[in-house]
């Protein structure tokens, strides 16, 4: 593993990021801008599932409006995040908050798969009303995971 990470961080662009004064903060800023929109949009969907916001609107309408933001913002945040990782791959790999953050991201992905396979069953029956328990659970789990991901991300900044 460490030989792969050493190879990665010694590539041309990761080295440039590490040695430049402004490249890392700039990529980090793009990461923050994207994650802000990612978290804001996914939280809107989660809060609708939990019945804490947008109760009067069908779930499909809220999700249809917000999830395109989530997907695009995730793509940008992931790319910027990978570039930051590549500049100090060995350091991040050994960082405990970073490992927990990646674990939470995996769990958030698994939670999303769970929701789309089981949580959206009989969507027509509850689209305009209260979400059933599995969908509520998925929304609550997603909310907690994304808040944890933000907290862990901030923690990574203080430990690397």
């Amino acid at each position, binding site marked *: 593993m460490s030989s792969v990470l050493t190879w990665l961080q010694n590539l041309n662009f990761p080295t440039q990021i590490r040695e430049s004064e402004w490249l890392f903060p700039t990529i980090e800023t793009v990461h*923050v*801008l994207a994650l*802000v929109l990612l*978290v*804001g949009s996914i939280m809107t969907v989660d809060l609708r599932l939990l019945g804490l916001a947008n109760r009067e609107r069908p779930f499909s309408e809220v999700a249809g409006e917000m999830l395109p*933001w989530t997907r695009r913002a995730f793509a940008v945040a992931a790319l910027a995040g990978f570039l930051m990782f590549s500049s100090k791959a060995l350091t991040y790999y050994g960082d405990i908050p970073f490992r927990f953050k990646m674990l939470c991201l995996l769990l958030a992905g698994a939670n999303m798969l769970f929701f789309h396979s089981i949580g959206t069953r009989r969507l027509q029956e509850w689209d305009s009303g209260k979400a059933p328990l599995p969908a509520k659970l998925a929304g609550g789990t997603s909310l907690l995971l994304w808040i944890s991901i*933000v*907290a862990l991300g*901030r*923690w990574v900044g203080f430990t690397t």
Partner: protein
Amino acid sequence: MTMRRRELIGASLIERFCDWLSATQISVAFQSVNWFVPLVQTAHIISISILLTSVYVVSFRLIGLSKGIQPLATVAARLTPWIWASLCVLLATGMLLTITEPARELLNWVFRTKMLLVLLLAAILAGVQLRLRRSPEYWSESPARTRAGQAIGLLCVAIGACIVIAGRWIAYV
């Protein structure tokens, strides 16, 4: 530049205020807990997520980049409480961070620019919301109004992004 600035009474007053604030009991208490800043920053980021997403949803409708099912006035009315509530949490958490590290924020020109941008964005948002409340079709009544709405939407998107960018760069300037 710094030498000249230090000679100015205003700057030295702020410097003295920072020294005083960072020596207060409450500031010292916050400084001594090493998880305090990351925790408050996390709450700050979650709040800016709610604020910026809400502002962008309204702005993209004004610009005409997104077409929702609900009319613009309904969208704006729905998001108004979220916008102002998140702004209040941002101010509160921002003040906690400033109390913890006064010089890092108050003596930083990026922080000062950020505060001006926040005031500007709040004023524009209040204006847009008030007009929509009085007349739901305000921003589509004439081609000129539509264009003005598009310009205001673009301005809000730009200011919102600049606020987040400035927020991150406080740490680097």
